[in-house]
Each structure stands twice: as C-alpha cells, then as structure tokens.
C-alpha cells in the first residue's frame, strides 16, 4: 500500500495517467451506483452505459460528425484569430503608454461585461451559422490572451533587459531575446484559459441559434428529454476542453521549464 501511494503521488507520466484513470473510474462507478439506486428517474440521470450507447448511436447516424464539423470548424477558425489579435493588442498595450492609458481601461470595462450575453445581438447582425459563432468565439476568448500578453511583457525582469543592453543589444534584439521569451509562458497560460472560454462561447452561440453543432445538439436533446444524448455531447465537449488544457499546459512546461522547479 505504501509503495502504491509513493507511485501514485510520484512525478512520472504513468503516475499522472494512473491518477487520472483512477479518478475517472471512481466517478463512473459513483455515477453508475447513483443512477441505479438513487436517481432512478431516467429524465434526470442515466447510467454511463446508456450515455455510451447514445454516443454510439449519434456516431453511427452521422449526427455526431455533422455537429462536430460545425462546432470545430467555427472554433478552429476563430481561435487562432483570437490568439493573433490578443497577442497583437497585448503587444500594443505593453509598448505604448498612450494606448495603455486610453484603450486599456476601455478594454478592462469591456472585459467585465459578460460578452456572451451579447450573443443574441451578434446573431441578429450576422445571422445564424458560421459568421456569428466566429465573432462570438473570437471576442469572448481574446481577453485572457491580451491581458496575459501585456502582463508578461511588462513583467520582464529589469536586470535581464539591462544585461542585454550591456552587450549593446538593439531594441529589437532586446525584444526578441529577452522580453518575448519572458512573456511567452504568460501568453500560453492566457491561451489555455482562452480555450476554455472559447468552448463556452461556441456552446452559447449555438444555443441562441444555429442549425448544427454541439450546442445545437445539446439544446435539441434537452428539449426532447433525451438525457443520454445530452450527456454524450457534454462529455465530448469535456474531452475537447481537457485535451486543449493538457496540450497548452504541456507547451507551457516545455517552453518555460525554469518556472516549474
């Protein structure tokens, strides 16, 4: 038991996979027990096996793929744009005092507005479908990226900049060899947060109006009391979020190993 605990709390990749599997099995087990003995109303909760079956049905009928295409294409188009714009705006704010003083507070104010609440407005402007999803996802996920970019660039160790200047580095050299590498892990953690927000945004956009997508499918399943299908799509979304999060965390560790020891 002792050595098992040592293993499971260890830093290895197998250990972290084992932790995850263990956790997943516990949740599934609890869920199964709950659905079998406690919440027997199938409108409220269905056991995991039913959810798996519903997922399979969706896959076979092709609905899963149609919805995946609609959702993923919108996110795949909007997210890189959000990253580019976010980093660009963050850069501009960090390098210009004037912009930081004028545009900065406005962006902060905008950020505290729950932008998703504006989704119906965007849909009214841009119609149902790709364009409105694209804009909602971009706007909603841009903020964490621009904020962390600005913070990361401004947080750069003064002494590192001075050391670089001491070698007569040009402004551009200082930027590429000191400021940017210093900010990079900040930017990536912003992107990680933005990824989660992008998934929220796409679902909300699809709730308010669309013909296809995970949000559309969840809403449709909810309205027809098909709890199994609803949960199947939620799980697919969860996996999408998790994969992104793990990927960006891995990237952050790779790019900034010194920040993790």
């Amino acid at each position, binding site marked *: 038991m002792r050595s098992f605990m040592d293993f499971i709390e260890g830093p290895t990749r197998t250990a972290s996979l084992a932790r995850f599997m263990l956790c997943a099995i516990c949740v599934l087990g609890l869920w199964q027990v709950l659905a079998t003995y406690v919440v027997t109303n199938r409108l409220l909760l269905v056991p995991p096996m039913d959810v798996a079956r519903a997922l399979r049905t969706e896959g076979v009928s092709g609905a899963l793929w149609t919805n995946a295409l609609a959702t993923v294409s919108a996110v795949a188009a909007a997210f890189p744009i959000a990253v580019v714009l976010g980093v660009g705006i963050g850069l501009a704010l960090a390098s210009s005092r004037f912009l930081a003083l004028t545009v900065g507070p406005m962006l902060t104010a905008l950020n505290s507005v729950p932008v998703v609440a504006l989704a119906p407005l965007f849909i009214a402007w841009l119609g149902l479908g790709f364009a409105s999803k694209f804009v909602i996802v971009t706007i909603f996920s841009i903020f964490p990226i621009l904020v962390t970019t600005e913070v990361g660039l401004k947080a750069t160790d003064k*002494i*590192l900049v001075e050391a*670089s200047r*001491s*070698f007569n*580095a040009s402004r551009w050299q200082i930027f590429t060899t000191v400021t940017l590498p210093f900010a990079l892990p900040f930017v990536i953690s912003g992107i990680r947060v933005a990824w989660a927000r992008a998934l929220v945004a796409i679902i909300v956009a699809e709730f308010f109006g669309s013909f296809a997508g995970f949000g559309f499918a969840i809403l449709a399943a909810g309205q027809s009391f098909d709890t199994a299908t609803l949960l199947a799509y939620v799980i697919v979304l969860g996996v999408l979020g998790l994969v992104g999060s793990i990927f960006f965390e891995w990237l952050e560790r790779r*790019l*900034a190993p*010194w920040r993790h*020891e």
Partner: protein
Amino acid sequence: MANAKSTNALSIEGINKVFGRPGKPTVEALRNIDLTIKEGEFVSIVGASGSGKSTLLRIIDGLLPATSGVVKVSGAPVTKPGSDRAMVFQQDALLPWKSVRDNVAYGLVIGGTPKRDAHATAMRFIEMAGLKGFEHHYPHQLSGGMRQRVNVARALAVNPRILLLDEPFAALDAQTREIMQSELLNIWQKSKTTVLLITHQIDEAVYLSDRVVVFSARPGQVREEIPIPLPRPRDLEVKRHEAFGALVDKIWHLIEHEVRSAVADNRA
C-alpha cells in the same frame, strides 16, 4: 601591475549623479567622482551600501547617463554600452531559457558573431570557468556558485578591455567565494584585462586588487585610494601576511564610520 607609462584604460572625470523623478525627493547618489584606472590594473571599490557603487558601474558601462561629468574608455567618452566593457551584475542576470552555452555566447551573438564561432568561443570560456559538461544545462539546474561563474564567463567571452564586476561573489558561501576569487585572479593574470570590482568584503578587495578605492556614504565620494603593494602572483597564503591584515584594518577603520552613518541614515 601595469608598467608606469601605460595609458589610462578608464578615466572618470567629475561624475555626479542625482536621481530625480517628478513628485519625489531627489537622491544624490554620486558627488564629484574622479578616478583613473590604468591598463591591466585591478581596482576595487568598497563602501557602505547605498553609497552609489552600482550606480557608478552602470554609468561606466553606459547603461545610465551621468548628471554631469564624463567617463572615458581609452580616451573616448562613453555614451552607450560597448564591446570594450562587460559587466557582471550584482543580481543573477542569466537568461533562464538559454542553456549555459547559449548564455555565455549571448554577448557575442548580439554583437553579430556567427553562431558557430560564438559557440566555439563560449565553450572555451565554459571550460575556463570549470563548467565543462554543463554546457547544455539550464541556469535553474545549476548551483548559485556555478551560475555566477556563467555570469563571469559570459562577460569574459566578449573579450572586453574592461571588466566591471558588481559584488559578483556576495551571494556565495565563504568557501565558494574563495575559490572564485582565486579563479578570477588566474583569469585576470592570463588575460590582462582591466578590472573594476565592487565588493563589500574588505579582505576580498585587498586580496585581489592593485588599489582599493574607499567610498564615503551617500552621496558617494572617493574618500581615499589605498595602493595594495602585496606581491603577485598571490595565492590564499597572502591572507596570512601581516601586511595583509594591516591593510584590511586600515580600510576597515576608514569605512567603519561611513557604514555606521549609513546604517543610522537608513534607520532614520
């Protein structure tokens, strides 16, 4: 111990520095500093903390403009950093995302040396710093003493005529410090660069230098210059000489008063 007719590697003429930001009281950090250092000479500055030592080094390196006065390197006034000077900072200033080799090569690469040549030179200095085998390590994987050696190697790699060292060994334990001092002496004896070292360790200053400059507390002024006529090459034995102890005592007496007033100042 350069010969008598050698030129001044560095001359500091009437340097004043007053820090001032709008809405804040100004700080007079340096007052009327005059100091000349000969080619190949090893000079140390000792003084209470806050007496403007780091500020002076930054001005010499070209990182900070003086309020008035000039610094000349081999007769030419300093306006910005240049490859004729290299600085080792009081704080660890290695780039954490670069390997030891890339850190040591950094100044060369910034100066336009092709990467391959820069890496080859870096390897020579890594070896000289006793860090062979660590060239692909990252700073966070090294001990404090090793990191500081990388800092020194990085400065030496650009082959500066003047090496500026700002309390480079302050953060190290006593043993590591002694080893680093000997290594610095070795390197200096081989390369014959001019060295200006800041330290608050009086015995370190006496052990290494041809001359020790004592600063008064804020505003920093040159209180006295003490030549150190101990024979070279020096090894740790020299620290047991009577003359060594006498010099340390003399400087300590000069500085004691300043340190006390600085401490009182900081309390106030």
